[in-house]
């Protein structure tokens, strides 16, 4: 298939890929880059913003905060995730599938849900705090560093547990048997054989957590109080700066991207060394535990998952409490749901329509570009491939700022439209879709497509009749995952929405900030339900594999 010099459909697809990357990625990012070097008062090029950032404590502290939060979240996620992974993959844990489902659900739970649920539990007037106070236990305030780390770690730890469990389930059992045969005890075998084998996956998962908490905007916004991190600083600066010249916000965005870039490079480097997941001839069989060991293992696993599920349960519970405005009254009912359906039905339809259109775009464009990446080995494709991965390292807040700066003027004027929201969903999710399509194709023998060509099918027809049907399952499950993330997207769209383009996650945020926990909870519960149903469909489609989920 390679080597044909004439233009065909795939040359056009490659060209389209470049157009998308330039117009909706490089152009807005370059705008941010440019503004970060422009002096606000004089309009001249200068390093002033950067110098200000690193000389004023208010600014450089947020940088340190971001790093501290990300490090602490990563550490806590590993502490929670690794034992869970170990016990559920190596021992028979009663209810392991349920634990797995709940962990995935909290991973993909709507934004802010963890943050404001912990506020309702442990905030100034939280029910859990009052209960503990009555028992004489005084906890430190939840707002700030501790709250952010708690909420983030309990949402993101499944990245660690799922990836570590994946590695633990695919290490060759005979390696551990060899270690024991050579005289090493269980603990020594774990640390000298098992742990080094899963270390690449473990660090891979941990770095994703680092990245997620570094770029997380919603949680620090709600539970951070005065403890600012880079995304919240950028947001605050942006909303207070005049939109014409978002100088300092741009500088913060660039710094945030640099951090993300370093993490991505690290992650790539580590995953390139991940060569252990070898032949699966000798998968480890889960062992049965007895006595005190069984009790301890079960307690630990259930405790971790219960803790991460707690905020979701609290949100569902409060969504059914009767309310009077922001105040919860006694009894249960559908007040909060009624409020949503009667006051802001537009929010629901917006979310569904924007996500649906975005997913259609993501799935089709992603599949076509994935095909080009996987099957066309030429210079233009080798250039396009890494460009398509850029959104992966652009935090939502940064992309939001870039979009609003770039598309608030000619030639592309999109401010205040639904299109700009759809585009953010599309761009943010595109790398995953391209990657997943390309990796599905790598498992399909290219000879099948060559056979189609050889039998007389032109390239487009071969793609439609051979490649596409074989990719279907992967595309559908990828599309459902895109649907989940689009429905829950908030960090970019929160900068771009106007009244008529408000979406569900944004309404959750606004309600939570205004103290309307009932509305926020009901909205979150709906999102949670959509997420749960979607995950169920992915699971059925992929036969219970976590791959599609971890890949997101």
């Amino acid at each position, binding site marked *: *298939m390679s*080597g044909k010099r004439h233009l065909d459909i795939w040359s056009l697809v490659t060209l389209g890929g470049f157009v998308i990357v330039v117009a909706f990625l490089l152009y807005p990012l370059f705008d941010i880059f440019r503004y970060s070097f422009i002096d606000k008062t004089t309009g001249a090029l200068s390093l002033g913003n950067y110098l200000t950032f690193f000389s004023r404590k208010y600014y450089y502290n947020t940088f340190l905060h971001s790093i501290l939060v990300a490090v602490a979240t990563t550490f806590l996620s590993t502490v929670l995730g690794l034992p869970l992974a170990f016990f559920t993959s190596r021992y028979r844990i009663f209810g392991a599938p349920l634990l797995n489902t709940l962990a995935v659900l909290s991973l993909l739970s709507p934004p802010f849900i963890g943050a404001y649920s912990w506020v309702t539990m442990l905030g100034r007037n939280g029910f859990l705090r009052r209960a503990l106070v009555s028992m004489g236990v005084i906890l430190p305030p939840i707002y700030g560093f501790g709250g952010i780390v708690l909420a983030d770690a309990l949402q993101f730890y499944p990245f660690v547990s799922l990836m570590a469990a994946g590695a633990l389930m695919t290490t060759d059992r005979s390696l551990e048997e060899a270690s024991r045969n050579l005289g090493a005890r269980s603990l020594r075998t774990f640390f000298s054989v098992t742990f080094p084998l899963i270390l690449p996956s473990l660090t891979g998962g941990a770095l994703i957590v680092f990245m997620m908490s570094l770029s997380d905007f919603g949680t620090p916004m709600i539970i951070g109080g005065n403890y600012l991190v880079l995304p919240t600083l950028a947001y605050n600066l942006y909303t207070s700066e005049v939109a014409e010249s978002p100088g300092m916000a741009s500088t913060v965005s660039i710094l945030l991207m640099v951090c993300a870039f370093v993490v991505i490079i690290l992650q790539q480097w580590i995953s390139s060394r991940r060569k252990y997941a070898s032949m699966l001839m000798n998968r480890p069989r889960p062992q049965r535990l007895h006595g005190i060991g069984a009790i301890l293992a079960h307690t630990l696993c259930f405790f971790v998952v219960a803790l991460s599920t707690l905020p979701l349960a609290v949100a569902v519970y409060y969504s059914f409490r009767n309310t009077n405005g922001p105040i919860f009254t006694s009894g249960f009912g559908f007040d909060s749901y009624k409020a949503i359906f009667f006051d802001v039905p537009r929010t629901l339809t917006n979310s569904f329509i924007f996500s649906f259109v975005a997913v259609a775009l993501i799935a089709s464009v992603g599949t076509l570009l994935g095909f080009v990446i996987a099957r066309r080995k030429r210079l233009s494709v080798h250039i396009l491939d890494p460009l398509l991965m850029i959104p992966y390292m652009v935090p939502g807040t940064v992309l939001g700022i870039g979009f609003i700066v770039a598309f608030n003027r000619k030639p592309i004027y999109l401010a205040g439209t639904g299109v700009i929201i759809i585009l953010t969903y599309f761009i943010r999710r595109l790398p995953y879709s391209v990657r997943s399509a390309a990796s599905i194709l790598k498992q399909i023998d290219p*000879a099948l497509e*060559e*056979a189609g*060509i*050889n*039998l007389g099918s*032109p390239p487009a027809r071969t793609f439609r009749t*051979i490649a596409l049907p074989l990719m279907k399952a992967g595309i559908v499950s990828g599309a459902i995952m895109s649907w989940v993330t689009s429905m829950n997207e908030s960090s970019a769209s929160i900068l771009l929405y106007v009244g008529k383009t408000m979406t569900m996650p944004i309404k959750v945020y606004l309600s939570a900030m205004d103290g309307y926990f009932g509305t926020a909870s009901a909205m979150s519960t709906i999102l949670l339900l959509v997420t749960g149903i979607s995950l169920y469909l992915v699971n059925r489609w992929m036969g219970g594999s976590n791959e599609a989920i971890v890949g997101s």
Partner: protein
Amino acid sequence: MTSIRIVEVEKSFGVTRALKGVTLGVEPGELFTLLGPSGCGKTTLLRTVAGFHRQDSGDIFLGDELVNDMPAYRRETGMVFQNYAVFPHMTVFENVAYGLRTRKIRGAEMSARVEAALKRVRLEGYGARTPDQLSGGQQQRVGLARAMAIEPRVLLLDEPLSNLDAKLRVEMRGEIRDIQKHLGITALYVTHDQEEALAISDRIAVVESGIVQQVGAPWAIYKEPSNLFVATFVGTMNLLEGEVAGPAEGGRVRVRAGNIELRVVSPPAEFAGRRLVLGFRPEDARFEPPEGAENRLDASVRTRTFLGSIATLELDVAGTTLIVEYHRPESLDELRAGGLARIALAPASILLFDAETGRRIVTPAGAAP
């Protein structure tokens, strides 16, 4: 029936030169094999004929038509793939019908041609099955039927048997040849398996490093290899390097190779004083030769390997190792490791090569008996 002509075809991948000016002609109805080790360029050549690669220079003709700029999907070559490439999301019937559908052949004619193709590969009644219900051999039959159903101008087979087990491989190669001869279709066949090539081909091109080393009928390739590469790649060849040790007498000359001296057919005069490589096949050693036989050698048996109908022996002759075949393994006891063996080599069975160029030196009696 269509011929294939490949003229001065060059192809590079980056800095790797895969084909260095290949010229070949395949006659109509011929089963022509490209034989060579992996990475020699034989598959690249086949795929260039199919249109999956575009040559950097040179021409490819199918019949009288120059197809250089014709895209693969219009070349009407029927290709059979190493990994079968049977479409897993289609039934056997749909697989075979695929090429007919692209040609807008529908309805009764399509069904008839699919059934005929399946019958030819002995898969009648398998149409409704899906590929995962078939064995490897059956899948490759589907691949063959699919390629033939479109009545292609030429059949291209890319190591079609290499994923099958040994016994099935032998069975299938016979079938492929029968079908090819029955249809009278021109076939270009790629394999790295020399036995398969010898068994199936009308003619063979031995390819190495992107260069055609020799083209010829199977027996010629085996008995008259044109150079040391062909001699050692096809079959086993014992090689001894040495030089002429005395004047020619009676059409014979003595050559000294290490501690062994052998009488061989005199090379032409222009090779006087050149270093020679002597080669002989394991089956050319004669056991228990009569007194006075030429080139009698006393050897000690180093190892022996029983292979059923024959045994191979590794002999030590004055410090040189020779591989020979023994055809009466029932009396093998006489030839146990550490024992003695006496062999003789007829001068006419010893091939001469120029040590410098590796080319075979053609001698008057050097041809096959």
